[in-house]
């Protein structure tokens, strides 16, 4: 709806955007107004239908995506075409119920053929899916081309089933779609726990004596229901996209499966509505592609910006972690330089730090600037000194390093000259709880395996450098992850 309003607003100013309007008899701003005000029964049916479609496809698509069966949806949706054509032939007009039954039978026949093919031949599942998809679709095209020679053929609107036309939805279609959505929501609600178990851990479900095969068949059946009821609005060719894309988007946004279901049906409804709106602006525009494009746009946004999974936030987190690790390494190096002359002076030279870090002078100067920026250090022309907070953090990191070395030599019996590299990595991610555990397990924590003293910290400061979030703080193995 937001997209629709944005297009409406843009239309008032932009002239070149009127390209879509070139095709229409009415001006497309008027069409948009007709859509937004819902004044027309056609518009009301289209909206209702796309909303119902969004719900049922979104819910079932989530199961497809988590079970890695996305392409079964594709095959099933192409395989219904001969059923649609036969449904038309039943009484040579568009009868939603006949089309529904025909398409349902064809879809079920298609999925049965896939499973028989994979069971009785050496063909792999992808080949079987592709064959069924294409053969059934070819049969459907044959039937349709025969049908179009009939005098009534061209007026019946069977073509709208290929790419979808939400404006062609009638009260009969809405009844069928409503019933299907009710059945899908009802059955998934009743058997939610079982469906979840069968999808995520079929082995365990079998151990519990659940009839997993029947649950899978029921799921395919519901899938065929949803695909068939969505045909008029999205079309045969692209209905699989409405199953996959909203559910894939949802699984990028959240980890819990019930939230995936909710998100996925909401996203399905949003893309359905905006697709119906965009195709309504012109006269010959099919609905399906516009719906899919809206869904893909939402998917692209989620892929880039989803808080936990998005490419941009993840890149940013990785970058800030790298910056933190570099900063901590510099702090450690400053500590070691200070330690090497027995903490005689408060400041060290940049040259000594450069030698210790084994980096170019420019890189070390950049790191010093970064430390000064977060007030961990103060720098004069060629000397560096730690501030109190920088000192504490340097101590914490050196302590982590040496505690871990001590732990490895003490508990894991590793030679003292083999523990440095490991500690070099773990020092940045040791959480407070882990440090406490190490302190408890080690008999003495004053000297590391190389004979250097382990700095002690005020109790409140142990592991405090982990404000930026290390892996050690996170709970491990929480259930229901998708």
């Amino acid at each position, binding site marked *: 709806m937001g997209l629709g309003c944005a297009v409406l607003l843009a239309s008032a100013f932009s002239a070149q955007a009127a390209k879509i309007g070139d095709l229409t008899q009415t001006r497309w701003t008027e069409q948009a107004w007709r859509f937004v005000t819902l004044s027309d029964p056609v518009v009301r049916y289209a909206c209702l239908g796309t909303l119902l479609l969004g719900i049922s496809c979104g819910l079932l698509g989530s199961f497809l995506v988590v079970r890695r069966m996305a392409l079964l949806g594709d095959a099933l949706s192409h395989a219904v075409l001969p059923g649609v054509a036969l449904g038309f032939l039943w009484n040579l007009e568009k009868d939603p119920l006949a089309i529904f039954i025909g398409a349902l039978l064809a879809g079920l026949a298609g999925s049965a053929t896939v499973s028989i093919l994979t069971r009785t031949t050496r*063909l792999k599942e992808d080949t079987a899916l*592709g064959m069924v998809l294409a053969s059934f679709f*070819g049969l459907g*095209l044959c039937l349709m081309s025969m049908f179009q020679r009939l005098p009534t053929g061209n007026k019946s609107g069977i073509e709208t089933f290929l790419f979808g036309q939400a404006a062609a939805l009638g009260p009969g279609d809405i009844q069928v779609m409503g019933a299907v959505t009710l059945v899908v929501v009802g059955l998934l609600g009743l058997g939610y726990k079982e469906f979840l178990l069968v999808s995520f851990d079929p082995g365990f479900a079998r151990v519990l004596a659940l009839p997993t095969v029947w649950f899978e068949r029921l799921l395919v059946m519901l899938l065929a229901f949803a695909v068939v009821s969505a045909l008029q609005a999205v079309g045969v060719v692209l209905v699989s996209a409405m199953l996959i894309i909203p559910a894939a988007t949802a699984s990028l946004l959240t980890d819990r499966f019930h939230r995936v279901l909710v998100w996925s049906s909401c996203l399905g409804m949003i893309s359905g509505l905006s697709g119906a709106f965009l195709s309504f602006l012109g006269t010959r*525009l099919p609905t399906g592609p516009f719906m899919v*494009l809206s869904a893909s746009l939402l998917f692209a946004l989620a892929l880039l910006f989803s808080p936990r999974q998005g490419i941009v936030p993840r890149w940013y987190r990785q970058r800030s972690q790298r910056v933190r690790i570099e900063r901590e390494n510099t702090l450690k190096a400053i500590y070691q330089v200070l330690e090497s002359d027995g903490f005689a002076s408060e400041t060290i030279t940049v040259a000594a730090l450069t030698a210790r870090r084994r980096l170019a002078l420019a890189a070390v100067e950049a790191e010093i600037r970064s430390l000064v920026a977060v007030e961990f250090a103060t720098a004069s022309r060629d000397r560096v000194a730690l501030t109190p907070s920088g000192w504490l953090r340097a101590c914490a990191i050196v302590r982590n390093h040496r505690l871990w070395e001590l732990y490895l030599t003490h508990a894991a019996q590793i030679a003292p000259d083999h523990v440095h590299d490991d500690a070099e990595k773990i020092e940045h991610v040791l959480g407070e709880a882990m440090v406490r555990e190490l302190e408890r397990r080690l008999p003495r924590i004053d000297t590391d395996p190389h004979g250097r003293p382990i700095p002690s910290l005020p109790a409140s400061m142990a592991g405090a450098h982990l404000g930026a979030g290390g892996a050690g703080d996170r709970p491990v193995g929480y259930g229901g992850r998708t």
Partner: protein
Amino acid sequence: MTLIPEFQAHRVFVEPWTTELGSHGLMALVTFLVGATCGLIGNFLILRRMALVGDAISHSVLPGIALAFLITGSRGIGAMVLGAMVAAWLTHGLIELISRHSRLKQDAAIGIAFSTLFAIGVVLIAVFADKVDLDQDCVLNGELPMIPLEPPVRLGGWVLGPPPLLRLVGVLVVSLVLLVTFYKELLITSFDPGLAACLGIRVGAIHHGLMLWLAMVVVASFEAVGAILVIALLILPGATASLLTDRMVPRLAWTTVHAALSAISGMHLSVALDCSPAGATVVAGAGWFCVVWLFSPTEGLIPRAWCLRRGSVDSRLRSPELRQHNESP
């Protein structure tokens, strides 16, 4: 007018080879060329379990073709191939991007990438319907019946045939050359990518080359059978051949036989029922697959059931269940 025209043996079986040779015979020749070209590459797609990547690419070349039409304003084969190859690469890149940078698996990534690009293609064609010499029907059905109507190319007194036919012959020749040149590499990378890498074959380069080859084949076939039925001709011949033999070279030969049989019987079917020739070819191809599925001496359902009843140990050893059991580690 009835749905199924009255069956006249002369019209269905004789006329396509005599008076109608220029139209129906030519159409059968075109579908045979498409089937043979697609079948050759399809064998490798099946072996690599990439059948659905073929599906994805055959859908997603559409926006490339549509854009090429929009920009050049003509059906130049060069622009079309270029557009389609860009689209095919884009699909490939999108699939990699999605499956690498998110938790989504490859199947979902394929579904998302190709349906988005296909949708873009359909929208381009629908919105610029007056500027693009393509319509939604052509996307699905191809333009097989139009091919005999195009003015034939002449070369010094010889009538060579309509341009699409020549293009298909060209693509078939290129495919055969590629196949013969890179046969060993294709075979090894398909069966054992690890060994291929050890032998110093560049598996990634072969994979990308195969994708480009696929894009070329798909574009050439698009005109004849439309975007969606290409997948049928990519998979059906290879799948049928794989039920007949275990060796690769006989498999390629059977692929060609299957393409020829489905082209000819599809043409007769489409004359008999007066229906879409592309659809009829696919239906005929699926029919031939079913025949092989039932009667293939080694893999067929009926010979196997027969042997099982006689209790032959040999047939049990050949059953797919047992073979899968043996293949799994």
